[in-house]
């Protein structure tokens, strides 16, 4: 019995003991949870509050426990949330409620956003308490807003750019396809998504696209990229010239997961280049105009005078004939000059490359500067082979290049000099040397002469586009252009082109 009592006593003690333990455990758990937990009774009085709640609301425990909920929560929130009704419902229905957000703004405290649920605590079939669990999600909300803002920002960059931006997986299946891609190709994202990207390139390029993707998959190196001018095939079946940069796309673990292609519409750039050419041409025409005016007025003056002689009375038949001949030759001379001018002034019909004879381009261009060089007392010497030198090129564009180089040379020799144009075949390429005896280019400026808008001409005399345009045309012909110069002695421009076999 004693033993039993003892046992019983111990059981009682242990029961008391364990009750304390549970209380302590409950308090600890409550405080350990990084959420605000309120235990509320049927009178909507607070039974217990977690430390987190007290910290957040800046209240002490004594100001909280035993108080009614409406005294603890700011009235606005209390009413807005209709918390009283929610809690009563939990008591009545023995069912949790909530799962909603609430915005808590305590006086003088920064706004907080909570996610809350109300849970019933049911003992022996009676809902004794309601637990209001509030999680502070202010940071998460702010972070996710920030993430969304950044996402929107990035998306608007990708969508606003006039360049094509597309991405594919490792197999080349299209993942993303921006607005510019939709606009240029005529295909909407939903039409291309998941399809192989190589199908949207010109047929003869598809293999190269596949090859790049294959390299992407098999290359161990961290990053590869490729620059290429590949035509894009539109929905209508047209081809648009695009300049691409393809590079490796990685995930957050730096695993290669696909490729990103950024493409620029070359049609726009070519249009701009043509505009540059055109403006440069007008520039050259201006320089030529002086020489042309002089050259054309001479035969005009001869014609005019011969006609005036013919109008006089009593002229001998021989002189009459002589006058008529002078008129005839004068008109011919003038029309040749006009023809040359027209040839140069006509807009370049196309930028197509064909097999052309470089020598005849050089010769033809030289005849155009004959007038100007004569006026400036410049002797022109040429050294060309007997036969043609065939290159892949565009006559109009190359004439533009040589015209610029010749006119530049002439401009550096205001007091006369010598312009020597020669060609040399070396190792499958042809080198055109254009040598002048002008004032040369200083070491300071020689590096800049191919830059757009760089000019040493007086304001209004040159736009400075000449040599940069030359440079881009020569590049287009797979050639190169370089210059050697000694100040005060002259310069030699060397233009190289690959020869056609």
């Amino acid at each position: 019995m004693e033993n039993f009592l003892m046992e019983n006593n111990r059981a009682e003690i242990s029961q008391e003991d364990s009750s304390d333990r549970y209380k302590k455990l409950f308090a600890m758990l409550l405080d350990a949870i990084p959420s605000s937990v309120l235990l509320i009774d049927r009178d909507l009085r607070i039974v217990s509050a977690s430390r987190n709640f007290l910290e957040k609301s800046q209240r002490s425990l004594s100001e909280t426990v035993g108080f009614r909920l409406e005294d603890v929560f700011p009235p606005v929130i209390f009413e807005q949330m209709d918390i009283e009704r929610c809690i009563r419902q939990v008591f009545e229905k023995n069912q949790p409620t909530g799962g909603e957000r609430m915005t808590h703004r305590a006086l003088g405290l920064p706004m907080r956003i909570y996610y809350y649920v109300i849970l019933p605590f049911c003992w022996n079939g009676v809902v004794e308490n309601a637990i209001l669990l509030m999680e502070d999600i202010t940071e998460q909300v702010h972070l996710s807003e920030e993430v969304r803002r950044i996402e929107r920002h990035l998306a608007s960059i990708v969508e606003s750019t006039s360049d094509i931006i597309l991405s594919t997986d490792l197999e080349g299946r299209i993942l993303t396809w921006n607005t510019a891609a939709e606009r240029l190709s005529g295909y909407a994202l939903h039409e291309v998504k998941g399809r192989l990207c190589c199908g949207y390139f010109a047929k003869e390029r598809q293999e190269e696209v596949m090859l790049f993707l294959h390299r992407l998959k098999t290359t161990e190196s961290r990053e590869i990229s490729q620059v290429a001018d590949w035509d894009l095939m539109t929905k209508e079946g047209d081809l648009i010239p695009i300049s691409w940069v393809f590079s490796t796309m990685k995930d957050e673990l730096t695993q290669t997961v696909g490729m990103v292609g950024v493409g620029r519409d070359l049609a726009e750039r070519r249009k701009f280049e043509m505009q540059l050419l055109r403006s440069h041409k007008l520039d050259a025409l201006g320089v030529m105009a002086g020489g042309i005016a002089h050259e054309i007025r001479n035969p005009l003056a001869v014609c005019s005078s011969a006609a005036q002689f013919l109008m006089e009375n009593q002229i001998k038949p021989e002189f009459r004939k002589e006058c008529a001949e002078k008129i005839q030759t004068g008109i011919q001379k003038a029309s040749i000059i006009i023809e040359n001018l027209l040839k140069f002034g006509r807009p370049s019909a196309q930028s197509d490359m064909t097999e052309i004879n470089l020598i005849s381009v050089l010769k033809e261009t030289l005849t155009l500067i004959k007038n100007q060089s004569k006026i400036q007392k410049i002797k022109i010497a040429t050294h060309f082979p007997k036969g043609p030198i065939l290159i892949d090129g565009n006559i109009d564009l190359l004439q533009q290049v040589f015209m610029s180089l010749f006119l530049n040379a002439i401009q550096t020799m205001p007091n006369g000099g010598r312009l020597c144009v020669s060609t040399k075949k070396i190792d499958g390429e042809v080198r055109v040397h254009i040598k002048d005896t002008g004032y040369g280019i200083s070491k300071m400026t020689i590096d800049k002469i191919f830059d757009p808008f760089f000019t040493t001409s007086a304001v209004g005399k040159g736009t400075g586009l000449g040599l940069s345009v030359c440079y881009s045309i020569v590049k287009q012909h797979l050639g190169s252009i370089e210059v050697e110069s000694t100040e005060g002695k002259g310069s030699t421009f060397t233009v190289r082109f690959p020869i056609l076999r």
Partner: protein
Amino acid sequence: MGNKGEKFLIVDDEPDMCWVLEHILEKNGFLTKKALNSSEALSLIESERFRLVFLDAKLPDIDGLELAKQIRKTDPDIRIIIVSGYFYKDDVVILKALEEGLIYGFIGKPFFHDEILETVKTASSL
């Protein structure tokens, strides 16, 4: 009209232009000599006396106005008429040369024969 028998020099690198001026002047009883470049012109001026020089503004070996200076150095009394298709009447360089007295007159190409004869008349009457 100026005194018949007076001698004029024509300087132009274009033979047809010389032909034109020769005919206009000779028809009116003047004597002419022609030079196709600056050295020919200067040596003629050194050895002969000319009343007037018809000078092209652009010559293969020298600028017309530069040659005018050299001619005036050789013969300060000589009167120079620039005949040119390169400049026009109101060109700054031409106005300046006229003002400085370097040249006596300017005739733009193409011209009426009367312009030439009018200039000869006024230049000779002075």
